[in-house]
């Protein structure tokens, strides 16, 4: 049995000395606890980069392997398509380059994004943080946006050479300056912690009381403060959260991205704050988002019919009804 019986291996002095050492250790732990954030993060980074590096590398390898397995079929399809298009690609590329030079579009395409894997530390108190497999050597900096194909996942919080720590939008420190997709209203998006992780919700605060905002309207990053680029989808308006006097109204948003389901992301590199609105307004991406939303809407009446329920009010009326 590893739990030994009491052995009188220490006298009264030894016991006092041991308790003194324990007190010193506890005082040191308290000191660590109250260190400034920057120092704590440096210490955490040092540990992650040394003792914990093999374990983090294991998770990276596992995530990569899982992603690879999932993507093989998709890649095969894409390869077939690309092969078919390759014959005409050379001419198109040349034409594209010439036109870009003519229009000086190069600068407008920034910031570039780097693909990265998402790694979860697995601790209960770091559920809102994740590691991404790109770092300062890839051009990532603190505040770089983390996105996936649906929109904003979060923001980079700490950067190391090859990895970075990012917080997703459910993090209590997360804020994003936001606007409606039509540019009529601006505000700040933040998270509202739920009773449990899946209950975390997103709120758009600070919009004018008399603004005409209806359920389903897309909300994008506004680019104010030059932290996040303008134009990244954040969510869709769901309903009124609360009104403050007759000045301001805040709204519940349906997030574009559910952080728990994210395994692979794009991390912004280079100049922060450059607009990326064209990325999501391109016909392909918008079309896919619309098709997905239509599928969801189609499935609700079908479910209701199958359950024999009566029709509910249309969701598009909810926000303005709530405010009235």
């Amino acid at each position, binding site marked *: 049995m590893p*739990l030994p019986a009491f052995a009188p291996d220490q006298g009264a002095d030894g016991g006092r000395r041991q308790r003194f050492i324990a007190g010193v*250790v506890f005082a040191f732990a308290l000191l660590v606890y*109250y260190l400034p954030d920057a120092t704590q*993060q440096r210490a955490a980074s040092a*540990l992650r980069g040394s003792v914990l590096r093999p374990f983090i590398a294991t998770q990276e390898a596992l995530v990569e392997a899982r992603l690879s397995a999932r993507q093989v079929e998709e890649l095969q399809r894409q390869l077939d398509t690309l092969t078919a298009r390759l014959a005409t690609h050379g001419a198109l590329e040349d034409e594209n380059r010439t036109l870009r030079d003519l229009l000086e579009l190069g600068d407008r395409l920034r910031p570039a994004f780097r693909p990265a894997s998402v790694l979860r*530390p697995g601790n209960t108190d770091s559920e809102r943080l994740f590691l991404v497999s790109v770092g300062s050597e890839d051009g990532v900096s603190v505040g770089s946006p983390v996105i996936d194909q649906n929109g904003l996942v979060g923001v980079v919080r700490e950067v190391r050479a090859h990895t970075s720590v990012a917080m997703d939008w459910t993090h209590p420190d997360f804020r994003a300056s936001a606007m409606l997709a039509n540019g009529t209203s601006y505000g700040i998006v933040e998270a509202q912690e739920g009773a449990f992780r899946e209950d975390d919700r997103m709120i758009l605060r600070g919009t004018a009381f008399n603004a005409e905002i209806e359920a389903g309207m897309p909300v994008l990053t506004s680019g104010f403060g030059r932290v996040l680029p303008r134009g990244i989808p954040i969510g869709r308006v769901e309903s009124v959260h609360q009104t403050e006097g007759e000045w301001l109204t805040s709204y519940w948003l349906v997030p574009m991205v559910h952080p728990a389901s994210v395994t692979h992301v794009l991390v912004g590199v280079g100049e922060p704050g450059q607009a990326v609105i064209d990325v999501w307004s391109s016909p392909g991406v918008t079309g896919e988002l619309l098709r997905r939303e239509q599928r969801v809407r189609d499935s609700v009446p079908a479910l209701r019919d199958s359950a024999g329920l009566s029709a509910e009010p249309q969701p598009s009326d909810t926000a303005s009804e709530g405010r009235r």
Partner: protein
Amino acid sequence: MTSTWRVWVVIAGLILLHLLLHVGFGVGRAAPDLLALAVLTAAREMRVGTAAGFGLAMGLLEDALSALSFGASAITMSLIGAGGAETRDLFVGDSLLFLVSYFFLGKWLRDMVHWFFVGESVRLPFVDQVVVQGSLDGAYTAAVGVLVLVATGFWRDAHR
């Protein structure tokens, strides 16, 4: 290999397995808290000051992965280490009841102290995280602890 060496090999194995399951494989709550189990087991092999230092080191390892509450695990684990070592003076025994209680209470107290220090922005309500989840985790850790002792042969050695 002497009994003491075997104990330390098992403790090292628990630490490695914990990091592999939680960090390497990202298993999360489904995997038991083997780090707490390692500290509780090691504490019975050490004197108070050393056990507190060992707990501090393990706590810092855990803190490195939780940037929101850096230091909370360091405090918690050092207290648990010191507390576990103090039980050598209070309880002399290796009965099943003692072991289960020791691991259960150790893990439960670890969760409670951690909840206290982890900060309001991160922690769940006390009832959810400490009373319900903490008790379940404590029972899980106690079961795994006893299994480890049986599997490694320490239980048999103690009752020879």
